[in-house]
């Protein structure tokens, strides 16, 4: 094959997060409406590799993805060896808003998957004016722990292999082999206890059931896309959000699971394109003088 570079750029951003200096890995490509992408628990920005390479979308959108601290190529803060990693709603929100500020994003679209799809609901509730739209992938208000997460972090079980084993079934059976195993590789590379620490947010602290009905889609439109094979955040969980949030819109994606952008990128983009087109069109409509 002919060698080539992808159109995206990866850089390290230095900023304070949660009161400590951090070195954060950020990828971006394209120009136009900022689209801030949030990866799943225990993974990293590589999940958005297809979106960051889609020439059509990059004409209209500046796609940005960053690795959460402790994930991917973002380092944990100095002194990490003395702490247990555990993601709280408060910290997760604070990290996202601080990164958006540091990048000087003007009312970006936020799109997150799984834990990112959950925090997207928190963003819609807490900061509707700061985002022009929110896209929740595999979004649900809460997930009860359905397995014992202590298996994810103990020295007599290989962390990477058990994390991949836990999530392997969340990928739809029909997703292509290469993309399936790329997605699992990301899980195999997570640091010790990081997936488990993210699940503290997903299965405990991030529960937004009691407040989700207060999301005002007039102030910030909310689009939800969920794969039919996702048994973690199920289509029923997402459809329940539509029942409870006035104006929220959901599409159940056929033949996709919990990692749509990574497990079968082209199928996912066929569902995402119409949503992005609506975001783009509504922004354009706003700019037309009356």
């Amino acid at each position: 094959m002919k060698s080539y570079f992808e159109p995206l750029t990866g850089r390290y951003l230095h900023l304070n997060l949660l009161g400590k200096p951090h070195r954060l890995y950020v990828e971006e490509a394209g120009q136009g409406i900022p689209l801030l992408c949030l990866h799943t628990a225990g993974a990293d920005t590589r999940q958005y590799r297809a979106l960051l390479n889609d020439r059509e979308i990059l004409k209209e959108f500046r796609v940005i993805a960053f690795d959460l601290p402790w994930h991917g190529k973002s380092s944990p803060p100095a002194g990490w060896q003395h702490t247990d990693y555990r993601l709280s709603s408060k910290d997760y929100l604070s990290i996202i808003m601080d990164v958006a500020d540091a990048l000087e994003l003007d009312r970006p679209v936020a799109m997150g998957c799984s834990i990112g799809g959950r925090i997207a609901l928190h963003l819609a509730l807490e900061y509707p004016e700061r985002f022009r739209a929110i896209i929740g992938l595999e979004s649900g208000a809460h997930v009860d722990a359905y397995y014992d997460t202590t298996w994810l972090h103990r020295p007599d079980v290989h962390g990477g292999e058990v994390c991949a084993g836990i999530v392997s079934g969340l990928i739809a059976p029909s997703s292509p082999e290469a993309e399936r195993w790329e997605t699992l590789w990301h899980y195999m590379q997570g640091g010790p206890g990081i997936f488990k620490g993210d699940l503290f947010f997903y299965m405990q602290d991030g529960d937004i059931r009691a407040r989700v009905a207060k999301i005002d889609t007039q102030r910030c439109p909310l689009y939800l896309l969920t794969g039919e094979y996702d048994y973690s955040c199920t289509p029923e969980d997402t459809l329940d959000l539509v029942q409870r949030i006035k104006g929220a819109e959901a599409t159940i994606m056929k033949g996709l699971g919990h990692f749509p952008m990574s497990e079968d990128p082209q199928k996912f983009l066929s569902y995402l394109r119409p949503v992005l087109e609506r975001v783009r069109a509504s922004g354009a409509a706003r700019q037309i003088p009356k």
Partner: protein
Amino acid sequence: MERLAELVNADDRLVWKGRFIDTSFLLEIGETAYLIKVAEGRIASVRRGPFVMPSWDFALRASRETWERFWLPLPPPGWHDLFALVKRRALTIEGDLHPFMANLLYFKEVMASLRPRETN
């Protein structure tokens, strides 16, 4: 179930994945129980119950209907993975789960090996 040993043992990569496993586990398909012995990643034996005093490290128990759905060539959502079955309370996994969890991808693949292969 008769073909389990043949299917697993013919898959060199799967046997390699399980190279550190020496365990016996109980598989219940409704009323029917099987005792499956794994030695260095190979299925050493599959015995059909009933048993008088079976010894095993862990057990997988689900109804016949559950396993039939799980083993469809393209299983429906929620019936396509062991943990999907656990979440919907259709499968219980109990006992000493260490060999199972430490080799989760292996055991998922062993159980899925009974699924007819799709021919594209």
